[in-house]
């Protein structure tokens, strides 16, 4: 708020104080001020904390050093030792988010396309169903998938009961699965694995993908599709040359939005990813929580994650604009 009032004071000559006062009464300015305040305060606070100093065996104190940022890139023992531990976590943050976002959009797109061809009634039924599934929290969804993939109650049980496990053992593929970490000596296992993590993450954002793709797809002029058909184009050619080019912008936009959303996923990663493949958001929480009370290091990691996300968004927009022109 103070930023805005300062700016106003600088921008306007002193003889307009009365109009300035009237401007303050303008509800729009007030709303902007509140929004800016609410958005900026947490961010500035985290930024300030990230320069703090950790007291070994106790809490942390305010300070000004870049040690936390240095640790994100080369580790605490630098220069004696270098570790890419935290960069590896950043990599996995991006890795899961990209794959899960693309997977969600790739599967949601044909679904939404077919859905927009249905009757109004059927469309609204689907939309209501998808919207209501958004009320399930991440914890709830992860719990569900956890049960689905569990040894005694889920997919591995199906493998065992149907004889699939024995068959896999007989043909020797079981050992391949063991090497991939998808089996123990007794049965197949899907936790912990990249597969389970990515599947759960795309499931998590799938309804968003449909809801984001629905408006542009329902606005798509179907007569163009029909025209292409009458001119002899097969369904794939129509999809490739008519629908996809028209939908390129919303598709990229949806992927970017889901990507940013997925960067912060916490529960799915802690449950389904092994520690070697966990993400920066898990690491942030590990630093801030009571265990070590190292909020400054957590804040530094959060800032690095934020900057990386921003870079990806800008790059995405830039590429989008370049291909458009």
């Amino acid at each position, binding site marked *: 708020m103070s930023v805005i009032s300062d700016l106003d004071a600088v921008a306007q000559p002193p003889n307009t104080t009365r109009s300035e006062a009237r401007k303050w009464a303008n509800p729009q300015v007030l709303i902007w001020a509140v929004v800016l305040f609410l958005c900026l305060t947490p961010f500035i606070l985290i930024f300030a904390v990230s320069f703090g100093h950790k007291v070994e065996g*106790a809490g942390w104190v305010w300070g000004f050093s870049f040690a936390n940022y240095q640790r994100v890139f080369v580790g605490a023992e630098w220069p004696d030792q270098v570790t890419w*531990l935290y960069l590896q976590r950043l990599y996995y943050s991006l890795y899961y988010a990209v794959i899960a976002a693309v997977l969600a959009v790739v599967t949601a797109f044909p679904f939404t396309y077919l859905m927009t061809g249905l009757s109004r009634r059927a469309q609204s039924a689907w939309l209501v169903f998808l919207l209501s599934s958004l009320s399930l929290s991440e914890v709830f969804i992860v719990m569900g998938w956890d049960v689905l993939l569990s*040894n005694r109650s889920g997919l591995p049980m199906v493998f065992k009961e149907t004889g699939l496990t024995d068959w896999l053992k007989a043909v020797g593929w079981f050992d391949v699965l063991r090497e991939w970490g998808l089996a*123990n000596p007794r049965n197949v296992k899907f936790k912990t694995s990249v597969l389970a993590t990515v599947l759960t993450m795309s499931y998590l954002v799938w309804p968003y993908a449909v809801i984001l793709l629905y408006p542009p797809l329902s606005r798509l002029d179907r007569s163009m599709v029909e025209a292409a058909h009458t001119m002899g184009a097969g369904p794939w050619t129509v999809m490739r040359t008519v629908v996809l080019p028209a939908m390129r912008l919303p598709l990229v936009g949806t992927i970017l939005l889901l990507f940013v959303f997925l960067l912060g996923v916490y529960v799915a990663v802690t449950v389904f990813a092994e520690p*070697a493949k966990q993400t920066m958001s898990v690491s942030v929480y590990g630093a801030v929580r009571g*265990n070590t009370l190292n909020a400054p290091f957590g804040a530094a990691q959060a800032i690095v994650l934020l900057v990386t996300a921003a870079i990806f968004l800008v790059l995405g927009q830039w590429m989008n604009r370049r291909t458009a022109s």
Partner: protein
Amino acid sequence: MTRMNRRALLKSAGSVAGLTAASSVIGTPLIAKERSLKIGAYGGYFENSLKEHVYSAFTAATGINVESVTQPNSTDWLVTMTQATKAGSVPADLSLYARDTMIKASRIGGLLSPLDLKAAPKTGDLDPYFVFEDTTGPIGVGAMSWFTAMVINPEEVGPPASWAEFWDSEKYEASLGLPKNFNAQFLDIVAATFFEGEATFKTKDGIVALVEKAAEIKPNVALWWSAESQMEQALKNGDVIGGQYYLDVSNLMAADGFPVQPVFPKEGNPQDYGSWCLSSISEKGAEAAEFVNFSSDPATQALMSRKIGTAPLVPQSKTDLTDDEFAFVSGAPSIKPAYEAYLDSETFIKETWEKMLAGA
């Protein structure tokens, strides 16, 4: 007492005026006599059980009312209490701290007040390890303790004689559940099994050696759990057939018919404990001493073992716990965690451990 006073007063009071005057005089000391104490404990089932079984017995025995205060855990509570102490008003007189948090508080300084052990003679029954003294005096008296134990699925494997057997990939490939946090005492198990115990934590080389030994068990670990419920589900579902888990919860699960069996191998299991610590700006030192005295009583220790599932801080012989009841919550030998090292080399151990887990 109160009724006696009032009756005597009614008899002696000659007039209504005299009665009013006298009752106002007598009323003041009556209010002052109502003693109370605010005690913090970890919220949930634990706090509820304390309220229901322990605080009520304490009030019945001493007349001191207890106001229960919910703590989220140990370390976050320390942050709250540090700020509250600075502000001059604390939410609890007595708080429950794990040993490492208590040492942290002692190092920060000015947060805790020594307890008057002369007014709490029963604390003499406790193993001296559970009465923590710093330069200012005894600042923490053990409240209760808990084990994290070796657990196995008895339908799949027999009880190992040593923790070292968990390193055998022939038997345990991708089948164990171990805690993910660096200070969840798995390193203490490694130190007790393959090295010189707590002493190995004293040097950086020692810590590296411990973590390298822990790295060798990685192919056998199916789950590095961070939340208690993860390991519970994995044990119930057969996703893991062994690992490290809370002794009392394992016993509860076994009692419910799940294939879980806690084991005390020859090296033992890590034992952690909570302490009652008095805030430096509390004025309830006398009441706190009475409570600590009550809590140290072998009868109270046994009560907590039965009702909350914590291990007693006094030998079994001093309590009336049966062998079965005792085995449900405790066992021998006990591995004492290297608390000081976890604090002194906090960043180093955490990062070395996480590098090992991440393979970075």
